[in-house]
C-alpha cells in the first residue's frame, strides 16, 4: 500500500492543475456573466440582465440555432463518411489496412488554418472549383453560394472532424471479436443482417463517441465561419469572440459561454449514459 504522503504528492499536481486552469476560469466566467458594463467599464454589480438580453433579443437565439444546425449537419456528414470508412478498413481492407489507416490520420498533422485557407482557395469565385465548372461549361459565371455560406462551414468542418469521428468508430469495430461475425452468418444471417444485428450495435460506443466529438467541436468552432462562413455562416462562437475582442461586453460574452457550456455538458451527460447502455463488458 502507498503511504499518505506519497498519495498526496502524486495527486496534488493534477488537482492543482484542474483547479487553476479549469475550475477557476469557469468560476470567473460564471461571475462575469452576472456582472455588467457601465460607460465602457466592467462593474461588479450582480444582476441577471445579460441572460434576459439573450432570451429577449432574437438575434442570439437565431445564431445559436444556426450553430446547432451546422453542428448537427457536420456530425451527420462526418458519420456518413467516417463510419463506412472505418468499417471498410476494419473488415475488408486486408493487407492495406495499415497504409489506409495512416492516410486517414495524416490530415490531422496539417494545421487547421492551412486546411481552412485551402477550402477558401477551392470554393472562392476565382477558386479551383469555379474554374473547373466554367472550364467544363457547366456554369457560365462563378457560382457564389459555394463560399461564405453555412454550406462552406459544414463542408470545412466535416473535412476537419471526420478523422475524429473515424478513430473511435474504428477502435470499437476493431474490438468486435471476429468469431461473432462468423457465428451470425453461421446462424443464417446475411452480411447485411449481420451488420445491423451484430456489428452496428457492438460499435455503438464508438459511434456515440465520434458523434459527440463532431458535434461538440463544431458547436464551439469560430475559425471555419470566420474563414469561409461569411455573414450568413456566422456561428455563436464568433459572437462571443466579437463581444470579448471588439465590443468589450465581457459579461454578455460570458453569459453566452455559460449557455454553450451547459448545452455541451448535458450532451456529454446523455452520451455517457447511452454509451453505458451499449457497452457489454
Amino acid at each position, binding site marked *: 500500500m502507498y503511504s499518505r504522503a506519497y498519495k498526496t504528492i502524486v495527486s496534488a499536481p493534477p488537482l492543482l492543475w484542474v483547479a487553476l486552469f479549469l475550475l477557476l476560469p469557469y468560476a470567473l466566467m460564471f461571475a462575469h456573466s452576472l456582472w455588467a458594463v457601465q460607460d465602457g467599464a466592467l462593474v461588479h454589480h450582480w444582476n441577471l440582465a445579460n441572460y434576459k438580453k439573450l432570451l429577449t433579443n432574437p438575434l442570439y437565439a437565431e445564431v445559436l440555432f444556426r450553430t446547432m444546425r451546422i453542428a448537427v449537419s457536420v456530425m451527420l456528414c462526418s458519420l456518413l463518411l467516417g463510419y463506412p470508412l472505418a468499417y471498410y478498413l476494419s473488415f475488408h481492407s486486408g493487407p492495406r489496412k495499415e497504409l489506409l489507416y495512416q492516410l486517414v490520420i495524416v490530415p490531422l498533422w496539417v494545421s487547421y488554418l492551412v486546411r481552412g485557407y485551402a477550402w477558401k482557395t477551392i470554393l472562392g469565385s476565382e477558386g479551383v472549383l469555379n474554374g473547373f465548372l466554367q472550364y467544363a461549361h457547366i456554369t457560365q459565371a462563378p457560382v457564389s453560394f459555394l463560399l461564405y455560406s453555412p454550406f462552406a462551414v459544414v463542408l470545412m468542418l466535416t473535412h476537419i472532424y471526420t478523422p475524429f469521428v473515424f478513430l473511435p468508430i474504428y477502435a470499437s469495430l476493431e474490438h468486435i*471479436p471476429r468469431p461473432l461475425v*462468423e*457465428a*451470425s*452468418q*453461421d*446462424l443464417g444471417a446475411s452480411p447485411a443482417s449481420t451488420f445491423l444485428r451484430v456489428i452496428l*450495435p457492438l460499435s455503438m460506443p464508438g459511434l456515440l463517441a465520434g458523434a459527440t466529438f463532431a458535434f461538440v467541436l463544431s458547436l464551439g468552432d469560430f475559425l471555419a465561419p470566420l474563414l469561409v462562413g461569411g455573414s450568413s455562416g456566422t456561428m455563436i462562437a464568433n459572437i462571443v469572440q466579437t463581444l470579448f475582442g471588439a465590443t468589450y461586453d465581457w459579461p454578455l460574452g460570458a453569459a453566452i459561454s455559460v449557455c454553450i457550456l451547459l448545452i455541451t455538458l448535458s450532451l456529454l451527460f446523455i452520451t455517457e449514459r447511452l454509451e453505458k447502455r*451499449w457497452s*457489454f463488458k
Partner: protein
Amino acid sequence: MSSAAISQPVLVDADAPLLEVRSVAKRFGARDVLKNISLNIASGEFLTLLGESGSGKTTLLRLIAGFEPPTAGEIWMSGERLDTLPPYKRRVNTVFQNYALFPHLNVRENVAYGLRVQGSPKKEIAGRVHDALKMVKMVEFAGARPSRLSGGQQQRVALARALVNRPQLLLLDEPLSALDANLRKQMQSELKALQREIGITFLFVTHDQEEAMALSDRIALLKDGALEQVAPAREIYAHPATAYTAQFIGQTNLLRGEIRRGIATCGALRWPLEEADGAVRFSLRPETIRLSPEGKRQTYEVKFRATVRQQIYGGASELLEVDCGAGQLLRVRLPACGPLTGEHDFVFSIADAIRVAD
C-alpha cells in the same frame, strides 16, 4: 419402402452419406494446410476430427461451415453442393471454441438469433427457444447476459443456439477445451447423451485423443493436413494402421525389427510370423503384456524375461518400464500388482503385436 419414400419430401438414399468431402485441399500462401482430403460422414454419426494443433482439423471444419473456400475439391451435403454456398445458406451450425455468444443479447435472444434472422413466426420461436434451453438445462438463465455465465453455462447456451435451428450437421470446434477437467468430463457425457437423443450428425474437432475415444462413433486422425486413418474408435485403437496413429491414440510400444525366414525379431523378442522378409514395425500396447504364469507358454504367445526399471502406481493399474536386455525398454500396464522389483517373466500374444506402417 416405397410408401416411406413417398411420405418423405426429401428423397435421400438411406445409405448415402450426409456429408461428402471430395478431394479437398486448402492452401494458405505457400503452406498446404489440407492435402487431398476425402471423407464421408453418415447421417446420425458422431465423427471426430482428431489431430495435433496445426494438423488442419479446424481448417477442414471452417471449410464445411463456409468461413473459408477450399482451394481444390468439393463438399456435398444431402445431394447438394455445399462449398459454393455462403455460410448463411448452409444447413450447418457451429459451436465455436470460445462460444462466440453475442454479448449484447441475453441468453434467450442469443438462442433465438438463428430463427429470428430466418423470419420464423414469433410464437414458434418462443416455443423452440424454450425447448432448446430446457434441453441444455438453462431455462432459468434465459434473461441473463452471457458475461454473467460461467464457461460451462456459456457452452450450453452455444449448444442450444446451434441446435435450435435443427441443422443437418452440427460442427463443434474444440468446444470443451476451455473448461476445467471435471466440467469437461461431465460435458462429454452430456454431449454424447444429447447427440444420441436428438440424432443430429456431429462433426467434432479435438486434439484430445481420450475425448475422441470417449465420444466418437468414428475417428478421423489428421496429420500435417492429410488423413492418417479413419476408423471406429475401438478399431483405430486396436488396429492402428501407422506408427503415428499407434502413438497418438493411447500409449504403445513401437518395436522396430525385421522378418527373416518366418521369424520376426525385435531386439530380444522373437516370434514366428509367416510374412515376407524385410524391415518391420510393430505396435504393442502396454496392457497386452502380462506377467507370465510359472512355466507355461501357449504356442500363440511370446515369453520374455525382463528387469523392472520403474513402476508408476496408477490406482486401478500400474505402469512398469521393463528392460528386456541390451537397453530395450518396454512399457507394461498391469492390474494392481503390488511392488515389483528384479527380473520377471512376461508374456504377450503374437496377435497383439500389430504391424504398422512408418
